């Protein structure tokens, strides 16, 4: 079984060009034997959209997606885009497209709205962390900032997720590392840590390219269930990583470290209830 990680640049606000690029790469990934291809966050639109948010939004039925819908008969595809709900709320979403239809939608749950980030100004928060079946197996889509909060990983883990799929558009910052930006190093730490603690594959697909001086940090990677980085892309260039995945390693890791078996969600829930009640009582 293979996953493709498509580390790409995008055209800001030009959906058609981005769809074309993602479709071409999906077919190439299929040729190279991948079962699923993962594109970065907002891969169909570009990242710093601001007021373009309302001009580039799509729905699962949008005709703009037809080339990808068609390609999805050959390969499972994860793409990022702005989704407009029937109520005209806009979300930073990732679609999993397979077999000619949008099979799963994840709306970004945590929106960074601080420092250089301003997502909460333009889009609404998602409210569900839901595992789903992809061609790889039980998977969860978590977008960029979602993974800087451990709550999302916990919820995915409890639902039996074996493949944490992480589309991202992480602007580079920090000059204290070697060969990569500081944030790229943190991403590696996150991937190594969560893959090991959940006995899951961690598939990180990040942007490259520049938007108004934000240089996206690339360095996409895949970690195996033992926390080992098994493939890594460059910090700058567009790349299609094709990575062999081994379900038996998931079993192996979980036999050796049976953390999921020992989870106590109900007790956690009771604690959460108490903590939330106490906080609100203050």
């Amino acid at each position, binding site marked *: 079984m293979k996953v493709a990680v498509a580390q790409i640049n995008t055209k800001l606000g030009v959906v058609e060009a981005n769809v074309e690029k993602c479709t071409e790469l999906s077919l190439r990934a299929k040729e190279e034997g991948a079962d699923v291809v993962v594109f970065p966050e907002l891969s169909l639109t570009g990242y710093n959209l601001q*007021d373009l948010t309302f001009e580039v939004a799509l729905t699962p039925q949008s005709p703009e997606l037809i080339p990808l819908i068609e390609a999805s008969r050959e390969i499972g595809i994860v793409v990022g885009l702005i989704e407009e709900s029937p109520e005209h709320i806009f979300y930073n979403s990732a679609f999993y497209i397979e077999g000619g239809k949008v099979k799963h939608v994840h709306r970004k749950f945590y929106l960074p709205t601080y420092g250089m980030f301003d997502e909460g100004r333009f889009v609404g928060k998602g409210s569900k962390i839901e595992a789903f079946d992809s061609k790889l197996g039980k998977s969860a889509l978590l977008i960029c900032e979602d993974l800087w909060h451990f709550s999302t990983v916990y919820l995915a883990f409890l639902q039996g997720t074996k493949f944490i799929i992480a589309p991202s558009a992480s602007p580079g910052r920090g*000059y204290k590392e070697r060969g990569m930006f500081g944030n790229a190093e943190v991403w590696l730490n996150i991937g190594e840590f969560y893959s090991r603690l959940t006995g899951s594959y961690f598939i990180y697909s990040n942007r490259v390219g*520049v938007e*108004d001086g934000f240089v996206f940090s690339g360095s996409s990677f895949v970690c195996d269930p033992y926390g080992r980085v098994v493939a890594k892309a460059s910090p700058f260039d567009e790349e299609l990583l094709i990575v062999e995945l081994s379900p038996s390693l998931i079993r192996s890791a979980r036999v050796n470290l049976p953390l999921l078996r020992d989870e106590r969600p109900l007790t956690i829930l009771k604690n959460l209830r108490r903590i939330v009640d106490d906080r609100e009582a203050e």
Partner: protein
Amino acid sequence: MIERLSEELKIEDKAFIEEVLTRFLREELHKAGFKKGVIGLSGGVDSSLAAFLAVKALGKENVIGISMPYKSSSQSSRDDAELVAKTLGIEFHEIDISPQIDAYYSLFPDADPIRRGNKMARERMSILYDFAHANNALVIGTSNKSELLIGYSTRWGDSAHDVNPLGDLYKTQVWEMASFVGVPERIVKKKPSADLWPGQTDEGEIGLDYHTLDKILVGYVDLRLKRDELIEAGFKPEVVDRVLKMVQTSQYKRKLPIICKIAQRTVDKDFLYLRDWGL
């Protein structure tokens, strides 16, 4: 704490940052439809570093360096500007701006040096944009983060350009990077000067050495330390206050003109698109 601030300024992997800055220049120019860049070469370390990065990003045949001395500019500045162009093998022009400056100030013979210096900076900007138009090029800026933050620049003069690879590097980091990319040592080592009048130095005018200034700035800006925390770290209260005051009172220089809002959407306020819109 002061050691922590010095540490904060250190660039761990200069080759990586050089690559980031050159990729930035190349992609921003190319996707906007330009191959060439124009740079004003003063003979100082900032414009020299910018020129080195531009050559790496665009190729030497696509960078034009222009030295624009006034008659009082020092010979060593002119020589150093030319040295950079020669070292890099780029197209080079020296344009003496004395005739137009002197023609204008013959009307105002009592004009003070700052007024004249500002006019010269804007004259240079005007020449750079003229060359940019003639060569289908963009103007590459050379303002570093220290001067941007304290407002040590002429509004619409040296602060006016299209893309700036140095704007997130403090002056002390510019020195580090310049030495790393191979800017001639005598340029890296000399005292920084706007060279608007003989004997002028940045540090003399700012009243503070760049090492101290950069530590205070990185503490305040990057680490968001408060005034009292900076003083506790060991800086003199009057120095901290002066730096913070310079940052505050120069904010207008970092902004485009402000517009009075009367309608639903206003160009400078809630009409929000990146410049790279559609690119």
